[in-house]
């Protein structure tokens, strides 16, 4: 599964994307975020406050309880601020 990070999530993790293989117990975006927060100190600073995060699965915006089953690309980022 390819993960993409944007804005301060990308800055805190230190990279814009990575390939991961979460355990089968990780089935939703929220569970993926919790699992990522334990991956490293940098990941902990990025994923420690899930309420401040939003996500897209295969380029479609989804709520945090959305399934990641079969997802090829999951993006995690702060609320958007365009326009």
């Amino acid at each position, binding site marked *: 599964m390819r993960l993409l990070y944007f804005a301060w999530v990308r800055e805190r993790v230190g990279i814009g994307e990575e390939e991961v293989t979460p355990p089968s117990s990780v089935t939703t975006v929220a569970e993926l975020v919790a699992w990522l927060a334990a991956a490293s100190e940098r990941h902990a600073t990025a994923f420690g406050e899930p309420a401040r995060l939003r996500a897209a699965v295969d380029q479609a915006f989804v709520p945090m309880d959305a399934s990641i089953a079969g997802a090829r690309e999951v993006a995690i980022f702060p609320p958007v601020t*365009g326009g």
Partner: protein
Amino acid sequence: MIRVTVSTAAIEVAAELAALERDGAVASFTGLVRGDDGVATLELEHYPGATEAALERLAAAASARWSLSAATIVHRVGAMAPGERIVFVGTCAPHRGAALEACAYLIDRLKTDAPFWKRETVNGAARWVEARHGDGEAAARWE
């Protein structure tokens, strides 16, 4: 006709407006980088592919809802200075009500539905701009 552009190039409003003139009423909105609060530079990050797709869905939704003859969204990304154009939204319809409403819809929804993130540099310090609560309310009024 739907036209969506996400680019680091300066936004040419004259050309965009001319391309929209296909029917009796053309409305446009241009957002400029604000220089108040001492902002020196603004940087826009986006989600390549997903951002363009989100803008195209938005333009298609507005075109269907207001029977537009044309809808254009141009969003700049990368670094820019105060006074520079950051976003342009334009609509064309046979009558003014449709063009004006669809234009307001596009800019309201763009702020909540398209993946862009702003980083400002103020007094030499960079900070990510927080989402505004009012933006969610403005977007919700179209539901």
